[in-house]
């Protein structure tokens, strides 16, 4: 019993503090072939930025390969020889940013950060003759002005926990009765099948609701995640999602005949799709079109949209009724199919 509550709490705390998809503290190395005033200034700038951690200087280009193979250094910045001189005379000086692109996301971000730092540096230099025509940008970050990644992760982790706990626990506990043969005893009793199922599922509804409350409380107090919208709406949507996960669990239990099969379907079958296709970690808009279409069948996707909308955007039901309807629709389908399958088994 303790593990049922303790584990989700441990997870949300761990992930809330530890996981971020921002990129900083990247270890890089520098190969400075000119070592003059200009390059020193730029290196100083780079060292001062929170994104990079200048690990060491290397002396020759042939060392790059071995550094990358060791896996610690993620990028090497190469300043061409005669950097200052080229900048003065040719008006152009070149910095090569060689990145280890086995992690494309990190590589791309490093390249972007480097050019941003250099642009800044140049802008500061130019300040003196700054009466050039230009459009300035004032950027405002909506809903999450401090850009905390935990705002994205709390709804995500909550969804993963609710989805898997509910679906896994119900499917395994119902198939357990089947496997041990006690299901037949229950079925010959005067209880109607749906009463048996509801009786079996009810403790898990209760449990999941408590889990949801604990997670939201932690999010609110520990991670300072606002709840801008109506808390009742949030509660309603959470219960709806829990029910849809449970009914998915029931569906799984009706099609599987052993706990192992139920486990394969609910854990192996659900875990990665829920993590990857729900928009929890990877933005859905950026996926190729077929993947965007497939992501629609993942209930978790809709719940994450709803939770973010209520908690962070503070909107009411008029903005999320479509997502809510989709969840209701899915739940109905899960239940309908389970009832159908279930009856076949009885005859």
């Amino acid at each position, binding site marked *: 019993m303790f593990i049922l509550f303790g*584990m989700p709490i441990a*997870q949300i705390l*761990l992930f809330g*503090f*530890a*996981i*971020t*998809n*921002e990129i*900083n*503290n990247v270890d890089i190395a520098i190969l400075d072939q000119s070592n003059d005033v200009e390059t020193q200034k730029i290196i100083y700038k780079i060292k001062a930025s929170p994104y990079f951690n200048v690990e060491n200087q290397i002396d020759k280009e042939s060392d790059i390969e071995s550094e990358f*193979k*060791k*896996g610690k250094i993620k990028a090497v910045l190469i300043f061409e020889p005669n950097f200052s001189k080229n900048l003065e005379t040719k008006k*152009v000086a070149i910095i*090569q940013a060689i*990145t280890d*692109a*086995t*992690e*494309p*996301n*990190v590589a791309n*971000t490093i390249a972007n950060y480097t050019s941003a730092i250099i*642009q800044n*540096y140049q802008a500061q230099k130019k300040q003196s003759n700054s009466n*050039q*025509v230009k*459009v*300035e*940008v*004032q950027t405002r*970050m909506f809903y*999450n002005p401090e*850009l*905390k*990644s935990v705002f*994205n992760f709390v709804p995500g982790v909550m969804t993963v926990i609710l989805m898997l706990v509910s679906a896994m626990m119900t499917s395994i506990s119902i198939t357990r009765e089947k496997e*041990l043969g006690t299901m037949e005893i229950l079925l010959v009793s005067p209880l109607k099948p749906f009463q048996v199922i509801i009786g079996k599922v009810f403790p898990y509804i209760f449990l999941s609701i408590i889990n949801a409350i604990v997670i939201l409380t932690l999010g609110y107090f520990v991670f300072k995640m606002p709840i801008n919208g109506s808390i009742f709406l949030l509660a309603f949507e959470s219960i709806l999602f829990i029910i849809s996960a449970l009914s998915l669990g029931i569906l799984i239990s009706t099609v*599987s005949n052993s706990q*192992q*099969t139920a486990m*394969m379907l609910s*854990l*192996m*079958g659900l*875990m*990665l799709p829920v*993590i*990857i*296709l729900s928009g929890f*970690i990877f933005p859905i*808009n*950026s*996926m*190729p079109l077929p*993947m965007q279409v497939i*992501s629609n069948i993942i209930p978790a996707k809709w719940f994450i949209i709803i939770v973010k909308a209520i908690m962070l955007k503070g*909107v009411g039901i008029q*903005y999320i009724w479509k997502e809510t309807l989709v969840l209701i629709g899915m739940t109905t389908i899960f239940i309908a199919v389970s009832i159908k399958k279930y009856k076949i088994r009885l005859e």
Partner: protein
Amino acid sequence: MKTILFIIQKEFKQIFRDKSMLQLIFILPILQLLILSNAATFDVKNIAITFVDNDQSRDSRDLINAFKSSTYFKVTEPHFSEKEAVEEMQKGKTDIIVNIPVHFNRNLQKEQKTSISVSINAIDAATAGVESVYVTQILNTYNQNIQMQSKYFSENKEVAQNIMVIPSFWYNKTLNYKTFMVPGILVLLVTMLTLFLSSMNIVRDKELGTLEQINVTPIKKYQFIIGKLFPFWVLGLVILTVGLVISKVVFDVPMLGNILLVYGFTSVYLLLILGFGLYISNHTETQQQAMFIAWFFIVIFILMSGLFTPIESMPQWAQKLTLLNPIRYFVEFIRMVLLKGSGFSEILNNLLIVLGFAVFVNGMAVWSYKKLN
């Protein structure tokens, strides 16, 4: 030895008897590898952006067109009031609102300077950061263009100094996410499958009562454990093989390193995972409990493996914690060997750590198994 072979034979029969289970064991990982690898991309593309153009001038339209011609953005219908646009953002129809003020054009011509305000939906902080970089990039080009035009008319023709940053992406020139994700997802699938199956295995015998029957036979504990786990070890390697073939044929993942090295490492790694599963199995009474605990650890292992989120950005204590995460070492290893062609000496460290863990965990598992009986 002969006894072990008999148990192994029995276990294989048990696995192959349950046809629906067998199908799931193979179909689920393969299907997921094929589908999910396509979805796992951090590329930020198709960003929905909308404009509130209060100026309606040639310059403001030029600016909008600059965004339209970019491949990153998907420009939606312009709005006439900020309020309307914010409404769209609340509905989730747009992620960026660019507000072009009245007199944008006039200020630009007369005072040489004007500003636009950009509002970004920042719930996903990392994406918002990238989006903001893209907006700035487009604006920089736009600025350069209008500066060129104005220079053309002025006498000040001095060329500005320019430091160019030329990025080059090694090992993955086109920044293809698939070569990065496919080996990682394969690792996850192999780990999940073997851990779940092994942690459910002995507890199942316990639950059904057959464990006691086996305990009264002359079979020794170690024979029983080896016999139980060996089939999953084989299964893990088979899934790995199928996965590697798919990676090569479907996703064209480069395999620069020695493939034997991959098998060697995986063999040791699977021992670790199976030992862990056995340990869970020993300490639980029902399959349900075993599953819940296995689930708990797998979620932590996956999210803290450095596959989806970079380890470097975690706080120090969390980085230390990832040192205990077997998936982390496997993900690091398979990337080093497949994508960078690292050799034995470079991966030795990872191999030794995994070997150490494997010995430790299996020791614990065998010890706790004896204790229970």
